[in-house]
């Protein structure tokens, strides 16, 4: 049971460090990334919440987390790209955000049940 706990702790620490780095460095976003960044961030957040949920369930899996993280980000970017190409970018982005938001909410609810037993 070493790995299931090590991964999440590293992940959460890295997240905090990343926030600090972002605040400190204030990087500029390359123009070609700009349209994808918001959706990608939401998708990655979904993966993180799923990971935390799995960790609390005691079944965190590093591979699942990495794959879901990367695939979430890629699919989100792809959807934005496709939506822009088809001229329904705004609607598709909204749909993605809604779906991811619902998933984040349900994961957060599961996390809440774990932490507060309520």
């Amino acid at each position: 049971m070493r790995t299931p706990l090590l991964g999440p702790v590293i992940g959460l620490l890295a997240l905090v460090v990343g926030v600090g780095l972002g605040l400190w460095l204030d990087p500029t976003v390359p123009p070609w990334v700009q349209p994808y960044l918001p959706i990608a961030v939401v998708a990655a957040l979904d993966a993180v919440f799923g990971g935390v949920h799995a960790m609390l369930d005691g079944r965190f899996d590093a591979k699942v987390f990495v794959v879901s993280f990367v695939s979430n980000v890629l699919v989100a970017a792809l959807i934005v790209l496709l939506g822009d190409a088809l001229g329904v970018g705004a609607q598709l982005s909204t749909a993605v955000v809604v779906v991811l938001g619902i998933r984040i909410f349900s994961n957060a609810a599961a996390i809440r049940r774990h932490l507060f037993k309520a």
Partner: protein
Amino acid sequence: MSPLFRAKRRAPRGRHHLDPNRFAEARPTGLRAHPVLSGVLIGVLCLALGVALVTQARRTRAGDTLAEQRPQDLVVLLDGLQQREAALRKEIADSEETLSRLRATGDRAAAAREEAQRRAAALGVLSGTVPAAGPGVRIGLTDPAGKISPEVLLDALQELRAAGAEAVQVGEVRVGVDSAFTGAAGDVRLDGVPLRAPYSLLAIGDPPTLAAALNIPGGVVDTVERSGGRVELRQADRVEISALRPVRTHKYARPTG
């Protein structure tokens, strides 16, 4: 909750996880065999997420998200802004027009009111409905023999008027445009009010002119002295005429034009 649903709910543990069961059989291959590699990957991904999260939040707060919006959205946005601008400009124009109109009206109204007040004051003095003060003369006529007739007092009034008297009071009666001396010598009435000797006259006008008008040979002073009376004439810098005439409401005449 139905038993069926509850059973279903329990079966796949951790339904919020992305793929809980698919990789379970793969154990222990791939990343699971390399805890260090998996830790590094997780760390890098989460680090990137933290940076991206903060960066995007900052960009959103800075408001420079307009650059990446789609042209259609920008057109809609611009259209809305232009419509709003046009509406606001129209509102400004309307408000300014209203302002200038109200200002002009206010100016005209103020000027008209001032003119009306000036006119009311002048007419009030003329008709005897307001008190008046100014330079003039005080005249006292004694009549020990009771020989001063209404005509003498009328003469005196005519002389004063001819000399430019603007307001005249005889006894306690303000002289107006319809004043009349009636009665006989010794029992003179002005507008029906009995006058008692010595008669006092107050007149506002140029004092020397008024005095000269009464003093002309064969004039009022001469007449009174021939009747045995005496005229006391004093010029004053300030004569106050406080007697008032009631305001007349005209029954038939109406202003025209």
